[in-house]
């Protein structure tokens, strides 16, 4: 009797203990007890992964550590950054040149790490400019934007910068179809169907990363949304999702949501290469900028190019095929084997999964249901592997863990759903806070995912952080996906809109030959000052060039007289340090642009046009040593026509004797 009683109490006690100690109740305690341990990286320890997060409307790219969510660096890409002098120093201005002139801002949506044999290789990360269509390549030895190429015939470069499995190409697809740059653009907007065209771009990537717009494919006017390359068996193909196959030009919210199915366009780019060899491409007159950073001269150059090779998808029948895909497909993701193509109809309540083998069979057997703008449309069922039924509301994007599972984000129902690619069964779901867009699993769009963490990038945070007025932080959330169930372990706020991100193992990048400083002997900047002996000031008319050096903790020269109103002064500052982590800064009063941050061994130029007579202090802005606050100097500005001679010095302009 007593024993039975004890057993009953024991059972209740154990049951309630289990329930109360671990079960999540609501959003604030959806985190179980060991989450902090999983995300904790002790002081002085390194993270396991680098996370390259697009800055969305900030135009930049941020670098975080995983699983700690610590921010390491914001790399300026498409937007000016006065902190780093990006777009302000004379050397960086050409990087932001376009066929529309200097463009100081853009909207960076997607990042893509370079790959070799379908695996992340740690060489470069690419980013797309959504507004003034461009692709950037960021060098992961220097964490600096090395190259930017503009895309003609495009409006809104969204389905970009996705790559083929050996980084043969980085692609772009126009979000807005527009009249081609080589056609007349001065047409009525409601002639969309007749005059507006889509162009998708294939940009060749060279061995050293240099980009070259190899060709474009012209398609009917639609909105291209996202894309991913085939891999393994489907290498040689590229898949682009598109919506607005209704070809609406106004109130797209309603008018581009009419059709039951839009398309995923499958592009046989190896076939396109064959057609080019056979001379089937047509050269068209366009204008686009190609900007390159030179590590030896520490200077960017911008070249305007005038021609692009265009292939016509309707005329060359076997390059492009349309696969019907329900309701405005957004994400277009290919699994690690290259067999399954996941389309996410953002207005659909199911996820269609296509089979590459079935698609090839359908094309071979001509299982077409018709044409769209001259492009064959494959029968839906003929290419379909199956549908994930009732997975959630508003499927957007899918990544993979390499263990046969797919993870799809649901914007409307704010959740991530894990499902089995082959059986299409839903295995697990977790809420996100709130309205998740993209997700990232390290290597999650490659042949070799590192399926340990999943990061959800959320559009809305509402009540998740301390309030900061009307504009709130956007955020990422890290889940541990190493077990059967996904487990939330950390929230972290991000810069701009964290639109999409990719991640790579830390060792792959930190052991890639990281540059620690620029060798001063290799500095070929036209205005380099190799040692204080060469420090000087020269005048050519009203242009004054200051050849200046910085070292802990003084400038040479630090006293300059003889500058006159009307002069344009160029401070060419060479950082003579030859050690890691010793940048110097440079700022001068009244400069109407940014500061300079000069890396060890680098030369950087600030243009300064003084507007008033007087004394102008200059100083080092990057705390460099115990005598950093002493790292300063003066520039004397005299009236136009003054007879004050041009002089410069360091350490010799001693106080005038007083009487």
């Amino acid at each position, binding site marked *: 009797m007593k024993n039975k009683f004890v057993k009953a109490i024991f059972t209740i006690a154990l049951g309630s*203990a289990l329930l109360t100690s671990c079960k999540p109740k609501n959003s604030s305690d959806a985190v179980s007890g060991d989450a902090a341990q999983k995300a904790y*990286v002790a002081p002085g320890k390194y993270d396991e992964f680098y996370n390259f997060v697009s800055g969305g409307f900030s135009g930049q790219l941020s670098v975080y550590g995983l699983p700690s969510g610590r921010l390491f660096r914001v790399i300026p890409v498409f937007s000016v950054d006065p902190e780093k002098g990006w777009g302000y120093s004379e050397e960086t201005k050409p990087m932001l040149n376009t066929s529309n002139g200097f463009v100081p801002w853009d909207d960076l949506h997607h990042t893509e790490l370079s790959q070799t044999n379908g695996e992340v290789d740690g060489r470069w990360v690419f980013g797309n400019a959504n507004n003034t269509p461009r692709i950037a390549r960021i060098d992961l030895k220097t964490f600096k934007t090395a190259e930017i190429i503009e895309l003609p015939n495009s409006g809104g470069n969204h389905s970009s910068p996705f790559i083929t499995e050996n980084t043969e190409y980085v692609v772009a697809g126009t979000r807005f179809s527009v009249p081609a740059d080589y056609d007349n653009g001065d047409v009525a907007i409601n002639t969309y169907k007749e005059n507006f065209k889509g162009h998708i771009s294939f940009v060749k990537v060279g061995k050293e990363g240099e980009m070259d717009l190899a060709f474009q494919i012209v398609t009917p006017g639609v909105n291209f949304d996202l894309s991913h390359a085939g891999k393994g068996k489907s290498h040689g193909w590229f898949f682009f999702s598109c919506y607005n196959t209704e070809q609406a030009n106004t109130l797209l919210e309603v008018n581009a949501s009419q059709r039951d199915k839009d398309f995923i366009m499958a592009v046989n780019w190896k076939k396109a290469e064959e057609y080019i060899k056979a001379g089937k491409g047509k050269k068209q007159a366009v204008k686009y900028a190609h900007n390159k950073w030179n590590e030896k001269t520490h200077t960017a150059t911008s070249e305007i190019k005038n021609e692009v090779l265009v292939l016509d998808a309707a005329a060359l029948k076997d390059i492009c095929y349309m696969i019907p895909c329900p309701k405005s497909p957004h994400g277009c993701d290919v699994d690690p084997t290259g067999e399954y193509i996941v389309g996410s109809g953002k207005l659909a309540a199911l996820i269609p999964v296509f089979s590459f083998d079935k698609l090839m069979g359908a094309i071979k057997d001509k299982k077409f249901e018709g044409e769209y703008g001259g492009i064959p449309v494959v029968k839906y069922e003929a290419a379909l592997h199956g549908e994930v039924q009732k997975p959630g509301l508003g499927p957007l994007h899918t990544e993979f863990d390499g263990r046969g599972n797919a993870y799809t984000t649901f914007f409307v129902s704010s959740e991530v759903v894990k499902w089995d690619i082959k059986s299409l069964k839903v295995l697990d779901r977790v809420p996100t806070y709130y309205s998740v867009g993209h997700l990232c699993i390290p290597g999650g769009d490659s042949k070799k995912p590192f399926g340990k963490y999943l990061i959800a990038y959320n559009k809305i945070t509402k009540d998740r952080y301390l309030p900061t007025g009307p504009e709130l932080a956007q955020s990422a959330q890290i889940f541990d996906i190493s077990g059967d169930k996904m487990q939330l372990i950390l929230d972290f706020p991000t810069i701009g809109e964290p639109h999409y991100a990719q991640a790579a193992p830390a060792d792959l990048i930190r052991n890639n030959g990281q540059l620690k*400083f620029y060798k001063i002997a290799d500095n070929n900047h036209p205005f380099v000052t190799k040692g204080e002996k060469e420090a000087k000031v020269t005048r050519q008319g009203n242009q004054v060039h200051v050849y200046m050096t910085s070292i802990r903790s003084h400038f040479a020269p630090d006293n300059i007289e003889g500058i006159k109103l009307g002069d344009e002064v160029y401070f060419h500052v060479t950082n003579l340090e030859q050690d890691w982590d010793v940048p110097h800064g440079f700022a001068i009063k009244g400069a109407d642009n940014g500061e300079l941050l000069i890396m060890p061994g680098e030369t950087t130029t600030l243009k300064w046009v003084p507007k008033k007579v007087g004394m102008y202090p200059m100083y080092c802005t990057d705390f460099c040593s115990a005598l950093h606050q002493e790292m300063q100097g003066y520039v004397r500005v005299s009236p136009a026509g003054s007879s004050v001679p041009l002089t410069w010095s360091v350490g010799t302009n001693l106080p005038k004797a007083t009487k």
Partner: protein
Amino acid sequence: MKKLLLTVLALSLMTACGKKEKEAEEYNPAADPTATETTAKDPSSYDPKRGEGKFTTVELGATLDQAMASKGEEVAAVKCTSCHKMTDEKLVGPGWKGVTERRRPEWIMNFITNPDPMIDKDPEVQAQLEICLVRMPNQGLSDDDARHILEYMRKNDGVK
């Protein structure tokens, strides 16, 4: 009896999440970055005559090698003389006059190629740091650069 129940309750509370905690340790193998780089820092092993670095003995010629000294002067103009004068006057760091008489050649070559550990360990360098307050930067000198600079210092000290 009550005691037994409490113990059971406490045990069940402890074990309910215990397994996960153990797993968490396995999930956190963030590579220890310092493990490979940290070598035994035994200050007693520091040799203040030789310094610390790759140079143990440096053979000096009886007379000056003019070509080496000229190369040394060129390198010094880019990497050293922003902070060091040729006289005994301090600029950012101490003047070079007499340095080859105060220091052994291997100490000089070790210090200019490997300053950070020596600043941390050498009592005289630490005393110097209290005066200058700027740690001498590592200027990325090659072995040859260092040897050439040493020869230039000898020239500055009157070796013919």
